[in-house]
């Protein structure tokens, strides 16, 4: 038996223009899918900026808390309770609330800003603030300002960089901006400041120091977070939740996905991309099958089975998937680089997403190939004479 020729590929190769058109079509579809999925992903990623930035192994939350900007308080003692559990090294109580920020230039404009307070002698914010900033917020009414917040807060970062510490106002209380950090915006969160727990109390006099919004739990090195979580949950009353950092982020994403149309819109966009790609591949393959009907009938007359012709068309669809996917992913990368610079969203294609999109592309091409195959059924070998 002679070596089997890759007929599908040879047929594609024989018509380079058509191949190019098909490849471009699929590339376009891949870019559409990539961009939609990645924007969706990036928006959700941006919702968990603070989650990812805060250093922790486990977090403690009130069961009523559904997302970061709207936390409910729980007793601080619950957090200290877990200190006794095996594996727990230390804990950091965190206070959070939305305060009103007055624009230092246009003083008539006030805007909600996310205020975080923690004990600067505790761990937990080392990824955001440097050591010097930890010391600075120990001073009364000193805060660190997010330079990647919305411009509506005023040119705080610029002023700070040019002139050094400057005066601001939170909840009508004068404060000093003594440093900058860099995280960025997300849903319901236009900008933020970080300060000490004491300064937080000064800005929010109604808040009690014993009721915290978030507890960061640091485990000893080598302790499994899942395991520790199990132990802790058994020991404390069920008026608080303990999440791993993964679950913590999922909570936030879930909230935005369910309560806003954002997830839906981008999923819809990705599906549109898929449909467009599907139609393009189907058109190309259908035309290809149509053009080769006589040749396929000849092959049938020579003794080739319908199954063989099926593999030819499927081979074509897989080749098209591969040829379209590679430039599609490449161009998507370029687009993300540009878009990330403009929007400040964390746009980057991770490997899992790329694999997923690749599988999606193959699925799309194979499905349209199978649909185009229906034409093949009509091939009557007796027609060729």
């Amino acid at each position, binding site marked *: *038996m*002679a070596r089997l020729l890759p007929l599908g590929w040879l047929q594609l190769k*024989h018509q380079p223009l058509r191949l190019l058109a098909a490849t471009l079509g699929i590339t376009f579809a891949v870019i559409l899918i990539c961009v939609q999925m990645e924007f969706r992903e990036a928006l959700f990623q941006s919702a968990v900026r603070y989650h990812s930035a805060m250093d922790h192994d486990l977090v403690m939350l009130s069961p009523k808390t559904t997302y970061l900007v709207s936390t409910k308080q729980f007793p601080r003692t619950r957090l200290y309770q877990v200190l006794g559990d095996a594996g727990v090294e230390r804990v950091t109580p965190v206070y959070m609330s939305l305060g009103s920020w007055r624009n230092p230039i246009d003083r008539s404009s006030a805007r909600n800003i996310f205020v975080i307070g923690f004990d600067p002698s505790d761990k937990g914010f080392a990824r955001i603030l440097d050591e010097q900033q930890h010391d600075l917020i120990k001073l009364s009414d000193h805060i660190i300002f997010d330079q990647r917040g919305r411009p509506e807060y005023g040119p705080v970062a610029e002023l700070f960089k040019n002139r050094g510490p400057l005066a601001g106002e939170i909840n009508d209380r004068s404060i000093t901006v003594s440093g900058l950090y860099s995280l960025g915006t997300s849903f319901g969160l236009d900008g933020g400041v970080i300060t000490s727990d004491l300064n937080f109390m000064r800005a929010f006099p109604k808040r009690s120091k014993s009721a915290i919004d978030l507890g960061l739990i640091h485990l000893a090195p080598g302790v499994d977070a899942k395991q520790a979580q199990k132990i802790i949950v058994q020991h404390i009353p069920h008026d608080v939740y303990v999440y791993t950092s993964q679950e913590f982020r999922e909570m936030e994403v879930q909230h935005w996905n369910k309560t806003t149309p954002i997830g839906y819109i981008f999923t819809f966009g990705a599906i549109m991309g898929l449909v467009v790609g599907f139609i393009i591949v189907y058109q190309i393959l259908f035309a290809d099958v149509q053009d080769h009907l*006589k040749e396929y009938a*000849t*092959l049938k007359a020579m003794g080739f*089975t319908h199954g063989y012709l099926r593999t030819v068309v499927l081979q074509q669809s897989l080749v098209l998937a591969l040829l379209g996917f590679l430039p599609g992913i490449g161009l998507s990368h370029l687009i993300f680089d540009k878009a990330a610079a403009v929007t400040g969203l964390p746009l980057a294609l991770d490997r899992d997403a790329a694999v997923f999109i690749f599988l999606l592309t193959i699925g799309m091409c194979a499905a349209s190939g199978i649909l185009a195959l229906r034409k093949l059924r009509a091939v009557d070998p007796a027609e*060729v*004479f």
Partner: protein
Amino acid sequence: MTDSPPISLSDVSYFYGKGALKKQILFGVGTDVRAGEIIILTGPSGSGKTTLLTLIGALRSAQEGSVKVLGQELNNAKERALIKIRRQIGYIFQSHNLLDSLTISQNVQMAMRFSKAKGGNTRKQIQDVLERVGLGEHMNKYPSALSGGQKQRAGIARALVNKPSIVLADEPTASLDKQSGRDVVDLIQELAREDGTAVVLVTHDNRILDVADRILHLEDGHMKSLTEAVSEDTSRMLNLLSKHDPSSASYLASFAFALARVAFADNEVTEEERIAMQRILRDVAHLEPAEVNFIMELSMMQRLAQSQMADRTGDGLGADRTKHFVESLYEIARADGSVSPEEINEIRAITAEFGIAHPE
């Protein structure tokens, strides 16, 4: 198995359509094709010859009768069995049907998918078969780079590469000029002879009929003898000629007849006489050699028949036949209502010529 003919048809009928639209295409066709035999299947368009070929080729199955190919009964056979038979047959298609996106050698290779040869020999085998059909230098070209004749030869190479015991060809010369058509048929004949292949060749092309061991003629789905078919065709052609160009036709006919009579006078026509007749006829009539040959052959056949008839008359024909012969002549004379004196004179002349006594 080895003794049974590769192709055996008996009482094959085929219908297209269903119910009220059902149309019979083949009526009880039957014949056997032996190994190494070349059969040419002729007939006008729509006579069912292609249908018959597709039945033999296992591309469809007949509703009635028996089609046995390589020992396998194809009527009501399963698709799987049909495919198995298809793999053992070499097809030569009317318009070559090469795969445009494959090179010539790849096209041949496609057919080798079902050959029993080992993989290592593939290239060599392809090379050999292409050299046999004179395409050794064009192995790696695409069909679009070849002439019509070359493409058809590539199609033949593809059909023959597996050394099939049956080759079916449908109008292999239809799209070719005279010379390439001739080359292609000679090639099929040569290869079939070498490999002992049974060949069934469907054609309209009278120029290639001579390669056949046997000619089958299909008309409206009925198998006819060749003489029947040829006579029908010839009388139609003669009729056409006398309508189209009556003066030259009749002059030529009588002139040729006269020449033939002289040539036959010694009861034998030598090659020299033949050539001389051809030359004379060509000079008078300004006809193409083919036309001259046709008229000459016809009149010689007529003369031959006449002289044989004359030899056999008297005691040869017998009383009954003689009576019948003369009565028939009178019957024709009476056909227009009355027997004129001219007609009686002519009948007398004929009987005298044949040496038959004219009853008073």
